[in-house]
């Protein structure tokens, strides 16, 4: 009898604990409801509430898509500003970050609060409905030319932008003979001298937005006929070009060469400004099930602060606010975001048909 009573008592106790836990869970606001509440406050009250909440949470689990030292130094600035938040950071590529979040959430493990990633890598996360809507006054600082990076549903906070453009080795090609436009890359004079990465969705989407589908198809065909160099690795291709291996980068980030040029002004590097530069945003997104929503919000807002934006510029990335470190103000930009999977499939098909993955 005693044993039965004891078991009943234990079972009842467990039920009570479970019920209390459930009540507690029910009472705790979801990140989205919390953010909706915050949106009703004045900016000052809101900031105070966010900081208080972050202080209680004391921690942020964040995935950065800047790599290594670049990422760590960025986060260190945040930790210096808000010493009460300890950031547990992992750094990886944008696609890997998206995969990681999906894997964790699918398994029901809410290990990541926020991630930074490129907008073209967002669709897979959006499809799974994993992001919290986060309206924030911080985005009011985004200047008009970059307002296209904002999301009407507030699912992300843009904080920097990346660029793809044409550049060349000035030892191999004098400026007067350099290409002036994307179409110029088809000229026979540059046969076998232009390098690209293997088919890259972001780059192709940028070209598609700039040219439209028909023109893109024609362009890919003529590039294919011009014996392009297809080699994996943006930085490595840039270094090879600067070493004299080939003359032109048809698809690459421009900052690598610009950084080299700053270190050593003799670096034989020039950017083709007359050809539009393709630009897409890097954004912070907050997990719908974030365990530290205040800290995530604090970080998302901070990325648009003067301090963070200066860091972006100092590291030769594109800040949304302030002066770009090396591109002139009047540079021709084509900004782009997501397109449908069907379009992406078609772009890959064209590329594989005419350019392929090797010569």
């Amino acid at each position, binding site marked *: 009898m005693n044993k039965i009573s004891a078991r009943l008592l234990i079972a009842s106790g467990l039920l009570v604990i479970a019920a209390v836990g459930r009540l507690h869970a029910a009472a705790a606001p979801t990140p989205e409801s919390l953010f909706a509440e915050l949106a009703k406050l004045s900016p000052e009250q809101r900031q105070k509430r966010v900081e208080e909440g972050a202080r209680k949470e004391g921690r942020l689990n964040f995935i950065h898509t800047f790599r*290594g030292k670049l990422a760590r130094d960025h986060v260190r600035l945040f930790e210096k500003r808000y010493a009460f938040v300890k950031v547990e950071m992992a*750094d*990886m590529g944008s696609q*890997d970050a*998206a995969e990681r979040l*999906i894997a964790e959430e699918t398994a029901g493990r809410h290990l990541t609060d926020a991630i930074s990633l490129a907008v073209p890598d967002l669709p*897979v996360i959006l499809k799974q409905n994993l992001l919290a809507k986060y309206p924030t006054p911080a985005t009011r600082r985004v200047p008009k030319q970059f307002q296209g990076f904002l999301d009407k549903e507030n699912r992300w906070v843009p904080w920097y932008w990346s660029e793809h453009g044409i550049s060349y080795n000035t030892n191999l090609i004098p400026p007067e003979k350099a290409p002036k436009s994307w179409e110029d890359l088809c000229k026979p004079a540059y046969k076998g001298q232009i390098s690209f990465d293997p088919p890259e969705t972001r780059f192709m989407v940028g070209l598609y937005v700039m040219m439209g589908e028909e023109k893109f198809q024609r362009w890919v065909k003529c590039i294919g006929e011009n014996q392009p160099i297809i080699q994996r690795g943006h930085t490595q291709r840039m270094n090879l070009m600067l*070493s*004299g291996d080939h003359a032109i980068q048809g698809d690459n980030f421009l900052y690598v060469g610009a950084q080299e040029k700053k270190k050593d002004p003799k670096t034989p590097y020039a950017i083709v400004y007359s050809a539009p530069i393709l630009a897409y945003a890097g954004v912070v997104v907050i997990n719908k099930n974030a365990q530290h929503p205040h800290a995530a919000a604090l970080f998302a807002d901070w990325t648009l602060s003067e301090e963070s934006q200066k860091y972006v510029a100092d590291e030769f990335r594109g800040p949304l606010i302030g002066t770009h470190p090396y591109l002139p103000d009047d540079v021709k930009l084509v900004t782009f975001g997501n397109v449908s999977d069907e379009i992406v499939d078609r772009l890959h098909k064209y590329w594989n048909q005419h350019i392929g993955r090797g010569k």
Partner: protein
Amino acid sequence: MDLRSGFSGLPARIRLDSSRFALGFVLLILLYQVAIPLLMVIWTSLKVARPGEPGFFDFSFSVANYVRAFGSGDFWHASWNTLCFALASTALAFGLGTFLAWVVHRTNTPLAPLIGVITLGRIIIPGILITVSWILLASPSIGVLNHLLEAITGAKRTFNVYSFWGMVWVHSLEITPLAYLLLSAALQSMDPRLEEASLVAGAGQWSTFRRVSLPLILPAVGAAVMLLMIYTIETFEVPLLLGGRAGVRVYTTEIYFNTARTPTDWGLSGAYSIAILMLCAGFLAAYFRLVRHGERYQTITGKDFRPRRIDLGAWRYLTCALGLLLVFLITGLPFLVMVYASLLRRYQPPSLEILHSMSLENYYEIIRDPAYSSGPLWNSTLVGLGSATAVMLLVSAMSYFVHKTRLRARKLIDFLGFAPIAMPSVVLGAAFLWFYLLFPLPVLGTLTIIALAYVTRYMSVALRFVSTSMLQIHTELEEAAAVAGGGWWKNFRAIYLPLLRPGLMAGWFWVMVHAYRELTIALMLARSSNRTAAVVIYDLWENGSFPQLSAFGVLIFALLIVLVLVGQSVGKRFGVREQV
């Protein structure tokens, strides 16, 4: 206990003791470390839904992924390229590796130890660096070798690393140390009396090598050829960095391009993995057939055993020169390029002007932030030591059960031990990530999860290292010990482990070094506190320039040389002493 179930030749008493416990332990680990990830891969390959999507855990299956994987002409074209690439690379690497192992371990060639150390030094240098070094050496436009040759002879663009044979050359040099290690272990464990008998009977050195030495090391030869083939089929860096410009598309680049979009197509990846697995199973069956008469290769018996070296006379100077030339090409030349690049701000072909601008700035940049470099280096050291030691102990026991017993499960053990070689790192990393997300053991974000993944990843190669040595040990030693009353564990520890030393050391070295180099799994499982050296290499590769990456490579090289020397001196205490 049923005597027919295995352990023939041993008294029944032994079969009931610790051997059963060891067998159970090995099977349990194989189930946990290999069977579960393998099952996840097979399951995923038969599902249209991604992990986590509705229907993923349903018992409805589809071959759609297999149809997609093998339904395109491109894939079969790439497969043909892969076959040519694998055959050419294996032949070259096997020839070079065998020659070096023979020179170092079985002849009185001067400087043999130095040749051996420099050959192994090659394994330490990350593959990315070596491939880029060869681009800098033999690129038609900027290759140092082409510049030198042009200056001397006027011949332009003689070498072209961006070609099929360029790929074969760079990859062969990459895998030559593997052939060297496998053959070295076998040559060191070989009883020289049979060779001496052949020589006394009037056969020449070459005839003795061909008719006596080579047949005795047949298991090692089989293992080496099989592993070299599989490694070439699996290799990624050379096809990725050189293949695009060479116009040579191989299996791995096809897989990469077909699965590189977000979200990762796990079903397609799984289908490709199963295809490689089937191929490996075929290789393993051929290997089993080759070594089916295991007793033929048992050269380590109860009699006095001391490996001896062959006196080459004056020819030893030629073998020395050839050996030095080879190791210069395999390790020395790319290492020098790496050191040269590490002193530059930006890579440029050598010139007087460049020599004046050299500095140690890249080293300073890396060292000045200890958290950036020393933390991951320490993590890699821990993971490397832990996983290498665990793997070698595990595969020693596995190899014993496979080759020294008649257990029905022995082929299954060998297959499970070998199966991980067929799982690309990205698939294995994902399997571990998913497993520990679904079963919340507290290992996420720790070094343990990386070490566990490495145990699986490197089990297959380590098993072959130890198996070749195990096949050479005669069972009479264990039988004698058993008659004398020793228990299984005591005999295993006192007889097998010391006699396996060459294979164990070679395997330990291989796993240890690769734990430093392995990138994909480390990246997939990395969080803030478990970053490894390979992750730093990747960061430098993605962010910075080749010079800084080279500086980090030089630092890793120095650290690993120290670790390996320590490991060797520890290993020598417990092994067979050679008579030189």
